[in-house]
């Protein structure tokens, strides 16, 4: 037990930086008798604790705020427990570092943002009003240094004349070099919210999917009634509420429903719903967004109310709810009135003050004054008075109407100022005759009426409409399809109205679902009309706060108006009104009203800002779910992956695939040593590379040849059975999409190979051609990429090795260059053999069912020991293909034609093929256009940079003189120097020419010679041995 010597107000007093040594507020003008001091303290018996409420007084929970320990009860929030301990100062404001206390009792809270927990679980910007108290909870205030009571950056408050709306835009204009280096870091440090732990989140988050006939959002009288009506009719109902206790405002009021306390009635309905198998009740679950076609996003805080999640349980679950119908019963949010210094700690919304008293048994102050313009605010005065709290006065802006009996009810008056920097000490008011007077109080409960919680109804761009009778926006009738609104969210403010509309909307839903409607069984409840006289702000000198979270004042709105930022969207962006974590739930309406006053327009004419998801902040962890770290995306492993890992292979990501990049051997210290060895070893003996990742598409049917003729630029219907042909595939605009080989295994059976990167897009494209262009061709397609493990076996010893593997005769005579066949391997296992080469060597690709891939590579490695066999990775693959002048992804960059590649003759002009017509366009068919060439540095020691541009000698390296660029650069161990492939203007006729390869980013320039792209075996003799 942490015994403290001072009482509530005194407890705050010790925080008063400017009242040194004095534990009491001692302004002689305020001599309120509500201020008591000098009592010992226990949360179970603090003067702030009132009787009643939905807390478990038999148990006590210890928690810490700013390093100091306190006690509360199960059922408390952090905010209610702090108030119960007399702590009213909970944070500092965003810009001016003004001391702030709690304003609300719900998720709309703008002020009481804290850092929760410590270490890796530290979480900034947690709203104390919705943080459920648990034993051992640690919280810290934010945006203050060195302490909450004395904050150095409070200097900003004195500098406020310079920090008005738009000051960022006006002050930090130049020099531009300072934007990121100086201004932004300084501003970020001075203005801001909480800080991140920068440690990895130790908890896990899940995603879940739910289906329902009816989703009910909110569990107040309207939501409970809707769920009960639909649940009794047998509909599959899900009821979600962000709170940890169902009942909504019934738990915050002393109203009776059906002859019992509202909260008791709510619990009885909850009990009935819990027993229905077709109803699912979800607490601590916020529906944050409405998406297309009845899809709702929700976050369930499974373990936020625990010190740490239970073992194996997620901390939060992101739910995607597919609901045939939904009823929004999210209630309403109270709004404040702006007046001078209306941000003092202790100034709260009247409904919140009532909630703290009724639900948590906490008096928000010892002596409470009220400032209202409507009847609902008067409920707070009555409830507090009944609970024994000293109600100093009700300052009622309305001159007419009855006075509250037994309470000082000042009619026709407004509050003009508030005193007490670190905690309210009193307010000044002006009555109808213009006389000013002061009242001592430590809490001011303010009510300017309630705004229906319309946010979700406008997530699909419907704008809410103005309802003069309650001076608030209500949902548009053109809201999301399938979403109905009931209760206060629909602008129906009485309890009876909520119950009635909840039942009525549920019956509407039942009718649409084709289920029997229910005769509503409406319990008796109050049906008071809304009596309200709009009042948004009290004019006068000094600063009156509109947006507490972003420190936007009435003056700022005025300045925006003056500077012509008058549309609501401009107002928001110029002043930052309504931004940040609370998204202006308590401030947007007020800002709009002030702007309307300035423009002389009505509020609906002035407009309303758009509401977008999420309704309240959603943690990144919940959105990511399990897609973190290694699980961020799926990983595809090749059939030889395990074997390659045993060899110590270095892997590289190729799309989702993990491919062996090279295989280091003992003694090799750089990747180049390994790659050079693999290249030379392949060209000298035999190398093996897993090429399973290349796309494989099985094409069968009597029209397979016709189909291939149309999707490839060259012809395949004439390809003999048992042969392979290289093909290039164009887009309709004449640009090359992909290249690869296609083998004809039978009269009506072809196997197409795609590049690794384009396996999916090419398959999609072929399906488009098959279904949308030529639906009656007799063909079937299937992707077999993962069905077959395929290895390239390349090098002069390739045949000798494979003859030990393949059961059939594969001599050059029996199986010549570009042959293919179904074979058996290792004594009967079915396989496929293709005599094709990417490396330029005598080479084959051998395929077996994927599950035998591991065994096959091990067998080939064992059989090839005497032949100098070695595995090679993607780096060596790249070197081999560049040495041979074969193109790959670097050359197929979505800008190149067959002509650019030097393959123009492959485009048949005699047949209908995708891309043929447009590939003949003048600019694409230029004789002097880009052509693929080889590049050799004049100085063999020179280092080339891929991406370098080719510039003629004596020309400036500018775009106008650009002759082309280097696409792929490798070190050729075969030649002993670097080589490159390049696109060069008119390249085919420039062999032997010398140019400069200029790279302005790397600041390099190398003299190069244009050569044939075929660096190795240009005649192709090795392929045919």
């Amino acid at each position, binding site marked *: 037990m942490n015994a403290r010597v001072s009482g509530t107000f005194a407890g705050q007093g010790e925080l008063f930086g400017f009242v040194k040594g004095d534990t009491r507020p001692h302004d002689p003008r305020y001599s309120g008798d509500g201020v008591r001091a000098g009592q010992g303290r226990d949360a179970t018996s603090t003067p702030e604790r009132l009787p009643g409420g939905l807390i478990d007084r038999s148990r006590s929970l210890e928690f810490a705020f700013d390093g100091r320990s306190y006690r509360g009860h199960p059922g408390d929030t952090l905010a209610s427990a702090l108030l119960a301990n007399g702590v009213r100062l909970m944070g500092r404001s965003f810009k001016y570092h003004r001391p702030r206390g709690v304003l609300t009792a719900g998720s709309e809270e703008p002020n009481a943002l804290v850092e929760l927990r410590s270490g890796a679980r530290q979480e900034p910007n947690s709203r104390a009003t919705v943080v459920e108290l648990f034993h051992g909870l640690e919280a810290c205030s934010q945006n203050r240094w060195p302490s909450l009571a004395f904050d150095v950056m409070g200097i900003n408050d004195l500098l406020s004349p310079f920090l008005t709306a738009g000051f960022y835009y006006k002050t930090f204009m130049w020099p531009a070099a300072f934007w990121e280096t100086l201004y932004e870091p300084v501003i970020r440090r001075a203005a801001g919210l909480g800080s991140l732990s920068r440690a990895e989140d130790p908890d896990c988050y899940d995603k879940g999917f739910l289906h329902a006939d009816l989703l009910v959002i909110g569990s107040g009288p309207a939501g409970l009634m809707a769920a009960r009506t639909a649940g009794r009719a047998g509909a599959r109902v899900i009821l979600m509420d962000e709170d940890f206790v169902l009942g909504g405002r019934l738990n915050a009021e002393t109203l009776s429903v059906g002859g019992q306390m509202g909260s008791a009635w709510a619990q009885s309905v909850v009990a009935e719903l819990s027993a229905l198998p077709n109803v699912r009740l979800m607490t601590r679950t916020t529906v944050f967004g409405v*998406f*297309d*076609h*009845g*899809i709702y996003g929700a976050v369930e805080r499974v373990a936020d109310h625990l010190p740490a999640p239970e073992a194996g349980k997620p901390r939060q679950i992101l739910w995607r709810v*597919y609901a045939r119908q939904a009823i929004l019963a999210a209630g309403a949010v109270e709004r404040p009135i702006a007046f001078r210094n209306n941000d003092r700690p202790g100034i709260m919304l009247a409904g919140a003050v009532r909630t703290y008293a009724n639900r948590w048994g906490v008096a928000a102050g010892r002596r409470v004054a009220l400032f209202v313009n409507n009847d609902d605010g008067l409920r707070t005065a009555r409830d507090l008075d009944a609970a024994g709290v000293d109600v100093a006065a009700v300052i009622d802006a309305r001159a007419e109407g009855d006075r509250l009996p037994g309470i000082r009810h000042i009619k026709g008056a407004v509050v003009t100022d508030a005193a007490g920097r670190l905690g309210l000490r009193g307010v000044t008011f002006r009555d109808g005759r213009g006389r000013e007077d002061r009242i001592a109080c430590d809490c001011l409960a303010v009510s300017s009426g309630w705004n229906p919680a319309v946010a979700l109804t406008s997530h*699909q761009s419907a704008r809410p409409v103005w309802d003069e009778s309650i001076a608030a926006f209500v949902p548009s009738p053109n809201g999301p*399809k399938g979403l109905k609104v009931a209760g206060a969210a629909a602008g129906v403010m009485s309890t009876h109205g909520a119950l009635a509309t909840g039942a009525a909307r549920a019956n509407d839903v039942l009718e649409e679902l084709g289920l029997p409607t229910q005769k509503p069984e409406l319990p008796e409840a109050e049906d008071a009309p809304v009596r309200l006289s709009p009042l948004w702000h009290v004019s006068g000198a000094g600063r009156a706060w509109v947006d507490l979270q972003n420190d936007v004042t009435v003056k700022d709105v005025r300045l925006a108006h003056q500077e012509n930022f008058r549309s609501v969207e401009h107002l928001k962006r110029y002043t930052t009104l309504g931004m940040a974590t609370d998204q202006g739930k308590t401030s947007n309406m007020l800002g709009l009203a002030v702007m309307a006053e300035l423009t002389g327009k009505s509020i609906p004419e002035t407009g309303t800002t758009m509401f977008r998801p999420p309704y309240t902040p959603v943690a990144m962890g919940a959105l990511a779910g399990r897609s973190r770290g290694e699980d961020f995306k799926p990983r595809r492993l090749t059939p030889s992956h395990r074997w390659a890992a045993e060899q110590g292979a270095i892997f590289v990501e190729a799309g989702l695939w993990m491919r062996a990049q090279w295989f280091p051997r003992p003694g090799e210290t750089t990747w180049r040593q390994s790659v050079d060895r693999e290249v030379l070893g392949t060209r000298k003996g035999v190398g093996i590379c897993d090429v399973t990742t290349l796309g494989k598409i099985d094409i069968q049917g009597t*029209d397979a040849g*016709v189909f291939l003729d*149309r999707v490839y630029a060259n012809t395949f219907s004439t390809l003999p059975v048992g042969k392979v042909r290289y093909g290039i595939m164009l887009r*309709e*605009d004449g640009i090359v999409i992909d290249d690869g080989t296609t083998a004809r295994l039978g009269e009506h059976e072809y196997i197409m190979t795609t590049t690794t990167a384009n396996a*999916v897009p090419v398959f*999609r494209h072929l*399906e*488009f051609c098959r*279904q*949308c*262009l*030529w*639906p*009656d*061709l007799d063909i079937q397609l299937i992707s077999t990429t993962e069905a077959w493990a395929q290895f390239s076996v390349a090098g002069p010893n390739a045949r000798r090795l494979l003859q030990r593997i393949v059961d059939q005769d594969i001599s050059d005579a029996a199986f010549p260059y570009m042959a293919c066949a179904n074979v058996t391997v290792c004594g009967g296992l079915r396989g496929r053999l293709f005599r094709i080469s990417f490396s330029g060597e005598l080479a084959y690709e051998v395929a077996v069912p994927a599950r035998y891939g591991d065994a096959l590579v091990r067998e080939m490695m064992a059989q090839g020991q005497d032949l100098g066999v070695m595995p090679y990775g993607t780096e060596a693959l790249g070197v081999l293909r560049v040495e041979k002048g074969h193109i790959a992804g670097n050359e197929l960059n979505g800008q190149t034609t067959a002509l650019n590649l030097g393959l123009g003759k492959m485009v048949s002009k005699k*047949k*209908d*093929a*995708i891309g*043929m*017509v*447009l590939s*003949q*366009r003048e600019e694409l068919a230029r004789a002097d256009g880009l052509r693929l060439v080889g590049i050799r540095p004049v100085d063999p020691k020179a280092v080339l940079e891929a991406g370098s541009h080719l510039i003629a000698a004596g020309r400036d390296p500018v775009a106008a003189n650009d002759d082309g660029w280097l696409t792929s650069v490798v070190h050729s161990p075969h030649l002993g120097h670097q080589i490159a492939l390049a696109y060069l203007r008119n390249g085919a006729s420039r062999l032997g020419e010398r140019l400069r390869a200029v790279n302005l980013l790397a600041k390099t320039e190398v003299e190069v010679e244009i050569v044939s792209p075929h660096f190795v075996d240009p005649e192709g003799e090795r392929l045919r041995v």
Partner: protein
Amino acid sequence: MLIPHPILGLRDAQEFTYLGDAALIDRPDGLANPEAFHDYLYLRDNPAGIHRELWFHEQGDRSWIVVTRNTVTHEILGAVLAQDVARARGRSR
């Protein structure tokens, strides 16, 4: 979003990839002049309202479908197999 697959019923839009205007079905004859292909490939309507568009059920049964969607409200008015549309528009082999 939910897409009413003509064979499989309501499916989540995440299972599909989007291509664009269903007019891509109306490909000119493969030996037509470049102007016809230019119009086919580059001139598309971009209506605010009812739009017929091609979606591919890539994470599903590989059907290409034509979805009729209101681009303003995202309301989906129907979906049919693209090959049926193609045949109805005279495409065959």
